[in-house]
């Protein structure tokens, strides 16, 4: 069965790009616009992996990661955060919160897939 990946980003273009790339590679994709939306959708249907932006309105990426990680069901799930070169501190914060890895924006579809393969197996 195809694995389901959730992409969380407030930028529609990033969401589309991630979603399109993942679908092409055969994954199921669930989109969410921010942390709150993500949590709601996670309650509806479980996912195998999370790809999230860090700066988002309402609930940001760091909080989302912390909250997801605290749930028994998602303790071991791979979580990838999208960061920028200048966000070294945010990256540390994200790692501390429980992120598995990160991708530095801007990135190419191949890079995204390589990282997903790395963590999802």
């Amino acid at each position, binding site marked *: 069965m195809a694995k389901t990946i959730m992409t969380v980003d407030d930028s529609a273009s990033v969401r589309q790009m991630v979603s399109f790339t993942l679908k092409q590679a055969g994954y199921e994709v669930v989109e969410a616009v921010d942390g709150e939306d993500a949590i709601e959708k996670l309650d509806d249907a479980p996912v195998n992996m999370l790809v999230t932006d860090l700066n988002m309105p309402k609930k940001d990426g760091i909080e989302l990661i912390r909250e997801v*990680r605290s749930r028994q069901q998602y*303790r*071991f*799930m*791979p*979580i990838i955060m999208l960061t920028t070169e200048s966000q070294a501190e945010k990256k540390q914060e994200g*790692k501390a919160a*429980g*992120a*598995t*890895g*990160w991708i530095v924006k801007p990135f190419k579809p191949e890079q995204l897939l390589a990282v997903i*393969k*790395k*963590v*999802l*197996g």
Partner: protein
Amino acid sequence: MGTFSRAFKEEAEELLLDLESALLDLAESPDDPELIDRVFRSLHTIKGSGGMFGFEEVVAFTHEFESVLDRVRDGDLPVTQELIRTTLQACDLIRGLIDGRGDLSADVADTVGTLKSLCPPVEGADAGTWRRSDGPLVTYRIEFQPMADIFTFGANLLSLLNELREMGDCVIKARTGGIPSLEHIASQQCYIGWEIRLTTDCSLNEIRDVFIFVEDRCALTIERTGEERRIEDDRPGYAQSRAGDHPVEPTLRQEGTASIRVAAEKLDALVDLVSELVTTQASLSQRTSLQTDPKMTAIAETVERLTDELRDRTIRLRMVPIRTLYVRFRRMVHDLADALGKSVDLHTAGDETELDKTVIERLNEPLVHLIRNCIDHGIEPPDYRVALGKPAKGRLHLSAEHAGHNVLIRVADDGAGLDPAIIREKALAAGLMDADDDPGESEIFSFIFAPGFSTKTEASPVSGRGVGMDVVKESVERLRGAITISSRKGEGTTITLKLPLTLAIIDGLLVAAGAQQYVIPLATVESCMELTPAACRGGRGRQLLNIREALIPYVRLRDLFRVAGDPPAVEEVVIVRLSNVRVGFVIDQIVGEYQTVIKSIGRLYRDARAFSGATILADGTVALILDPHRLTEIAENDEGRRFREEKL
């Protein structure tokens, strides 16, 4: 070096067979990139190991071969019949070079010329298309000890190790010293670390990148070891197929199948030992059945069960899938059809069906014969087939399946089929039957197994005049198998071979003559009966039995083996069917059915041709296994003329 180069030859033969079948597949589906890759892998391995064992010519030639296929892979050379033909020829040449068959330099030059003429000139330099330079191979020693809570960050250590594996030659050892005793284990913690030895042309940074997400949650050291070497072959073709789409080397792939090559003698020695064990166990069982100690009986029963399983497993070690035969046939069918101007599709089924290696080896010849017959006599030329409303391409179907202790192998074609009327006529002319006989269809078909029988009026260069069906039948029977034929005129012919799974075990009929016991292979036994005076016909000197209106010659084992003493009042006779002959063996008494492991009787007794082996009975005495074919021949020589006249 001798044994190494033998291993190389064996391996090369397998690779060549694989190469050939990939090329033939490619002819059918030229656009399949997977097939091109398969061709490359085989060729590349031949080239690589050829270099290691000093087959310089092979290396040079396969290199030329590779560059042509490279163009095919890049899509600027179409797969044509001519290309396939030339590449198949190239396979033969490689085989010749490896076997050291005389001076082939002229042929090599020739084929290289043809290969090159197939390639249109290259536009511009093709350098720069190779993705990775052939940098130095460096061996790194990596120690990787993740922190215990690493999983709670979603890290996937397995895919991380796999990533390393894809970078080159990689040996991964787990450090298990940190695993606490069971009661202290927290199931979600990581207690294992790894030591990795990686030989790669990737840079240190590329290796570090693998660990990028986990580097601050583990103890990691990566250091270069002293050993370094350059890739010896710096030709671009080498570098590309090495670093191209297949990061994993073919040899690494093969490790996945985890098989071991063992010399046949070692297996034979094991089979011998096991058969002695079986015998010893049988004596044990017999002894324990005479006493009343229940514990002893239980032990004997366990030993029996274990021995049975050990025997079966040991015998299975000698079994190889019939696929190893099939691959040879694909090439043959292709060439034959080509030579005869026919178009034939070979289908195979049951490729994984296993048979004893000896049976497989000895099956090759009869099957080659049958396949030749199918293509030569069975399958019609394409235009003729179209006129008949059949598809232009003939269909040849090879299948194998297990049926109890036997394997059924079928060779079927959708060709012209056998015409019972013609066979009948020929059989009459050859004196195989009388004009007023009315044999059934299957009996009529079985005439084609008679020596010298042919329905073809003209000899053809491929399968001759049908000489050989009798040979096929005999070789199958020597394997203790049987052959049957079914056919429908205009629709095709199916020939079925029924063979024992292994030659190491025999289902036999244990009989006694005098004090000595013998085993007759059960597959040949047709019936058993008492030798009544009424059944004996023909008077003195003519030993014939009258069974259901048929006269059957018989031999007294007592006479043949010069057994002393008087026979019992009532003797018994075992009727054996061989090819088209029935022979009776008269013995004192039938003991019963007996399944046994065959032991060879050794070189000292090789002139004792009446026996195919020996077995040791539960009480420790030896029973000889009769070879009914040889026995009949011997009896024939003894009885001379009288015997021959009465053949059916």
